[in-house]
């Protein structure tokens, strides 16, 4: 053991270095958020509670009851019951999502050919019974009014209802200069 090492050992140099680091952090602003009091806004497109899109024209759901979302759902938690309406049109009688079984993969959004279902960014929901998590068509439409009000819903579908033709487009020439500036 060299003298240097001995000094380091006797005076706890490496421990002091660590303590100096933690001491420095003591005077820095905290990085944590005091959750119930302070809240962090979820980012756009966060995958939370579902909502059924309300057609602004008719005021009813956009869903036509094709059942693709139910077929795609990996946890099979979407239940759709339809019947024949007056003019032989398909009517969605019940549209129910068992939210407790959902894994929030957003495959239902991807599967829907009509843009009739979205995942909102609302994630803080709780309840005392299972029934509260059994979302019916009416409650899902309410979710749309509550969490996707205004332009938000339209923007959501524009950005996150995928895939789009541009995703398959042929490659454009690489924009090297864009990256080079970094």
């Amino acid at each position: 053991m060299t003298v240097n090492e001995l000094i380091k050992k006797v005076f706890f140099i490496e421990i002091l270095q660590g303590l100096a680091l933690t001491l420095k952090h003591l005077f820095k602003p905290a990085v944590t958020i005091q959750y119930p009091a302070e809240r962090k806004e979820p980012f756009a497109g966060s995958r939370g509670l579902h909502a059924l899109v309300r057609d602004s024209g008719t005021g009813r759901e956009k869903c036509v009851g094709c059942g693709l979302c139910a077929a795609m759902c990996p946890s099979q938690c979407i239940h759709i019951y339809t019947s024949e309406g007056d003019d032989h049109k398909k009517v969605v009688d019940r549209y129910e999502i068992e939210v407790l079984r959902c894994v929030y993969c957003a495959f239902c959004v991807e599967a829907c050919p009509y843009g009739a279902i979205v995942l909102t960014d609302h994630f803080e929901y709780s309840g005392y019974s299972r029934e509260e998590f059994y979302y019916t068509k009416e409650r899902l439409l309410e979710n749309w009014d509550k969490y996707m009000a205004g332009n938000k819903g339209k923007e959501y579908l524009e950005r996150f209802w995928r895939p789009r033709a541009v995703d398959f487009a042929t490659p454009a020439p690489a924009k090297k200069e864009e990256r080079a500036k970094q």
Partner: protein
Amino acid sequence: MNNSNSDNNPAIATKELTLNMGPQHPATHGVLRLVLDLNGETIVKCTPYVGYLHRGVEKLAENRNYMQILPLTDRLDYISAMSNNLGYCVAVEKLFDIELPERTEYIRTIVGELSRIVNHLLWLATHALDIGAMTVFLYCFREREKILDLFERLCGARLTVSYPRIGGLKNDVDAQWLEDLYAFTDEFPMRVEQYETLINKNRIWLRRTKGIGVISAEEAINWGLSGPTLRGSGVPYDVRKVTSYGVYDKVKWEVCTGKNGDIYDRYRVRMDEFGQSTSIIRQCIEQIPQGPIMADAPKFTLPAKDKVLTDMEHLIHHFVLITKGPQTAPEGELYVSTEVPKGELGFFFVSDGTGKPYRMRVRSPSFVHVSALPRLCEGEFVADIIANIGSIDIVLGECDR
């Protein structure tokens, strides 16, 4: 190491004590149960029992089509869900023989390496906490949070991301995201230095990790170890180098290895991988080309939404693909492995040509590593078990599946 007192005094009988550790034990990183036969403080025999987190992922997969299996893979190793998704997609793409666009490969490499950093941060945090260093735990979570935020911006979820798709990705990255990620890689090496200041030379850390849980290179190979656990013993084996996926052949990086195969070396390998991953991400961001993100494989990928809305053919195709799964899967068997943060994750498919796999088997690194735990622990002290479990980096979700 028999208690010398009782050895001298034949009137006091001694026998081995059987101790049950787990399944509910914070330091077993999940629900691992170990039955320990102890002689004083020394472990005579260690028997791991797994299966407390068994959810039947492999069986579930037989009843889902190839697209629907993806969220199941999130829940294997829930700490690095992104890597599992990638591993699954790479395997299925090999099965279907899909050629990926270049941009997709770059983005996949970036998110794969981010996932490696997330995993190693969580590993370092909990490993250090197990051994007694609380501060590292908090500092690691600070950086992990930043990456999880990036994940959330990218795909809407923090942990169970389900981001890649067969033949592509859920959505493209935007320039701002790449810019922010680049800024993160600027400051991250400094953070790693901070962790190292805290524990690298700390005498308690060294005493707890150096020369403990030693496994030689040959034995490590024989036990089937992989990933940093294998590289800690000095075997430069990395699936990213030996097979081709992502753009690992287009960026400069090295395989990090240790020498002694003890807990400290395994720790060093993972710490070095922080640097390698950061450098891979930076190079990828610098080189990433413009272009499509979905492969041109209409039989296996969902058609574009704009086409579905306007074109009958695409709409029919959309319906068939979702209700029945990809109908033209080739028949046969295939094993494909990728390097996830914990080691080698392999998917084995038996395909009968329908939209669902006839059998899907997952070769998970955690399961293999747990099997080597008795070899690492026996003959050492009880306290070293915790350090050993930490050093092989297991997650029981992946082990039990």
